[in-house]
């Protein structure tokens, strides 16, 4: 068998593949329209920050002390406060989902507050447990607001100075703690997974279905040429897509980018190679476009979405699932992308990710090479 690569044949095959990509509207949609669409969905649609949560305040006590406390809540940009005078009215609002939780300022609020000593004053905080994230946010915020109110009061009365030690929280890498800043770099991972795996899962299977593979196999094309001709054009397409995503993220969505483009290109290439390898492996072994696309969705897209730590924190997963995430290439690229975007070139993290991505690329492309036969059996 002719083992050498003929550049002429490889160029001819790549040229053919490129023409097919350009002329296939669905490739173009997957490569260029889908990424931008997904970026905007992840950029604007999904937001893990709770802004303007609707809460209620039941003012059973209308004394100045009680009002003063309520004012703390009204001033917050994170809350949208509704005021009622009775609990029953608030309960109705809660059931109708007009509020996500409420705090009750009881009739004896000011009396108990004025009482210097004695048992602590309990305040009732009710939250909507059917939306746990929001519920705990409401709970924490109200607790914080109460604490703040007490300190202020003490300060005003000059009775006792504020405590000697206070917490000064700072968010590193993402100073305003905006979820978008880490969601977007993560979502680029999802996009590259879709492009890399879904597109390539179709290409070899398509040749089998249309009977063109037989014609290729009967020509002097070698296995290496066949494999490279499927990898190279889609690699170029994927890299263009990657940089398109980064451009949209930085210039349109205003996501800070602190690393270097060269590093991004390097790690992006490794991840893309792993995705392309997986897509080609599925396509080569299944030889059926529909099955290959389904398999690509399940084997690449879903793990990238659920198990990469892009949205769901890996540390809060069960141990067995955590162990499994080490096998998901997207996990390493999510880490790398979030690092490059938010922290810059942090070499220990990036090298670690690169090593794993390199291994998975070699694995998938190697397996595809093994599965690619110069025959029909």
């Amino acid at each position, binding site marked *: 068998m002719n083992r050498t690569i003929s550049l002429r044949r490889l160029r*001819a095959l790549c040229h053919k593949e490129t*023409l097919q990509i350009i002329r296939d509207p669905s490739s173009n949609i997957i490569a260029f329209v889908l990424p931008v669409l997904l970026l905007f969905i992840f950029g604007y649609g999904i937001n893990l920050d709770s802004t303007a949560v609707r809460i209620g305040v039941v003012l059973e006590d209308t004394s100045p002390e009680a009002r003063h406390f309520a004012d703390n809540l009204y001033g917050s940009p994170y809350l949208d406060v509704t005021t009622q005078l009775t609990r029953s009215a608030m309960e109705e609002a809660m059931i109708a989902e007009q509020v996500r939780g409420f705090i009750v300022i009881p009739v004896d609020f000011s009396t108990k507050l004025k009482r210097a000593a004695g048992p602590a004053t309990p305040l009732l905080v009710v939250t909507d447990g059917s939306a746990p994230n929001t519920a705990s946010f409401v709970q924490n915020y109200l607790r914080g607001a109460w604490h703040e109110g007490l300190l202020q009061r003490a300060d005003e009365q000059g009775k006792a100075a504020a405590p000697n030690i206070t917490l000064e929280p700072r968010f590193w890498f993402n100073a305003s703690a905006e979820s978008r800043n880490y969601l977007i770099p993560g979502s680029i991972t999802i996009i590259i997974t879709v492009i890399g795996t879904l597109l390539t899962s179709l290409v070899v299977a398509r040749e089998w279905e249309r*009977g063109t593979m*037989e014609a290729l196999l009967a020509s*002097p*094309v070698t296995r290496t040429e066949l494999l490279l001709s499927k990898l190279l054009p889609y690699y170029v397409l994927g890299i263009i897509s990657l940089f398109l995503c980064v451009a949209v993220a930085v210039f349109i969505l205003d996501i800070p980018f602190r690393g270097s483009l060269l590093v991004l290109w390097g790690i992006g290439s490794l991840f893309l190679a792993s995705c392309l390898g997986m897509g080609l492996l599925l396509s080569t072994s299944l030889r059926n476009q529909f099955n290959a696309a389904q398999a690509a969705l399940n084997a690449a897209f879903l793990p990238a979405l659920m198990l990469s730590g892009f949205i769901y924190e890996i540390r809060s997963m069960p141990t067995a699932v955590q162990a499994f995430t080490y096998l998901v290439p997207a996990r390493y690229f999510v880490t790398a992308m979030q690092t490059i975007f938010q922290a810059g070139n942090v070499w220990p993290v990036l090298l670690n990710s690169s090593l794993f991505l390199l291994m998975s690329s070699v694995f998938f492309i190697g397996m595809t090479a093994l599965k690619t036969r110069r025959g*029909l059996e």
Partner: protein
Amino acid sequence: MVCLESVQKHFKGSAKPALTGFSADIFPGAITGLVGPDGAGKTTLIRLMAGLLTPSAGSIRIQGLDPIADASTLRGMIGYMPQKFGLYEDLTVLENLQLHADLRGLLGEQRSHTFNRLLEFTDLARFTSRFAGKLSGGMKQKLGLACALLGQPRLLLLDEPGVGVDPISRRELWKMVNALADQGIAVIWSTAYLDEAELCQQVLLMNEGQLLFYGRPAELTSRLQDRAFQIRNISGNRRKVLALALCRPDVMDGVIQGHNVRLLLRPHVALPDPREFNAGANAELVPVAPRFEDAFIEALGGGPGGYSELAHRLQPIIDDNDTVVEAVGLTKLFGDFAATDHVNFAVKRGEIFGLLGPNGAGKSTTFRMLCGLLKPTSGNAHVLGIDLKSSASLARQQLGYMAQKFSLYGNLTVKQNLMFFSGIYGLKGRQQQAMVDSMTEVFNFQALLARKTDTLPLGFKQRLALACAVMHGPAILFLDEPTSGVDPVTRREFWTHINGMVEKGVTVIVTTHFMDEAEYCDRIALVFRGQIIAAGTPDQLKAQVATTANPDPTMEDAFITLVQSQPNPDLSNPAPAHKATS
């Protein structure tokens, strides 16, 4: 050129070998036909020669070289056109040629010279910038051939080049391939059309992986000399004549040819008297030339006889001479492409009406509108006086439909398919059980009831599909290419059932691209590019094209002449890019 020595091929997981002990020699400068129905092993044999499969036993030598071990040397010598032609539909004609030229190292001046020669040879020079997907079947086939010829092969492997191509293009291709053989190339042409075998210099006649015959086709047909006859001037019912003839021990095979019946007698029997067939006083027995199909039938042990148990069990339908199916200005547009273009015809009760034409002519689209499966863009279709536009489901209860490729549930068993199809047509309880039992007896399904339908041989699938279509006793039977890919003996059996049912008053509308099957029809309509270009009895159509040079034309002759006599049969007009009917 090629030496096959007891070549065998077993595929993993299939009980029967795909090829059993093939030995043959293939010579340069000649066309060798691989002839047989689907599942005969034609494609497997071609792939073995192309080095795409490894034989399980035996050896193949192409000019002394092994197709697998010496693949790199041989690839330059072999031109291979797979089924469906192996073209990239989203590349243009020229881009397809360029790709294959690059892959085969055809460069520089030699390349432009070869391109010019092949484009001229295939008459594709005008279409170089057209996408391959937008070419008609015949043009695709020529382009596939041109791609296979780029490396200037010494051996040309063509896998069913005639499928999906109209008869005119098929004839052109034969001319081209003959010219290639004259240049000294060894051509291997695989086909399921038995009549094509007679055009080859030598044939390998195959069935279910067995080599039935290897040699010159004339040698095979000459064995049948003086055994083929036509009964002419029949005054009675020709279907009854055929049924009677096929039940006799001295008749091996018989078919209807227009108003005549063609018979193949068993060897060493006395000539029968045509009056014994109830053919009327004027009937005469005229000797005709044996055909290749006769030889195939003989090799398979003769035809199935003329008695249809299925028809015997049917309730007779009273022949009121009514028009039962009518199409008026029937039109279906897919985009701006007219798959069916103002089609008019009427079918009377108890008739066999044939829609004849090449793949993509619009037969299936017309058909699906008549069954109420597709809504016409304009025009009307009436079945038993019911307008299909307004009450398609009411009409559907009255008709049986056997779809192209037998739309059975492959992962249900034979019994489950029978129960399902009888159930959806409203049979239930004891009546349903009785009908399923009856079908089981008629078609000998007893041993197969628990088998998954996917695993059945093609012939049984066809029988099962027919059973499923007739269980509810339909007055009208729609058969969409019911015999494609099936061996000739099974086809005979199928037509015996159809003839029997028609005698019981069932009306049959059938599509086919087998020109010889059209002869069974009472009337046929030739469909080409969505339009009916001619209609009448088979004999009328043939008579239309008879000349002094060709006084007794075949149905295919009639078809080709009628198509070519069309005003401006614009051959540059492409077929639709997608198959509009699927």
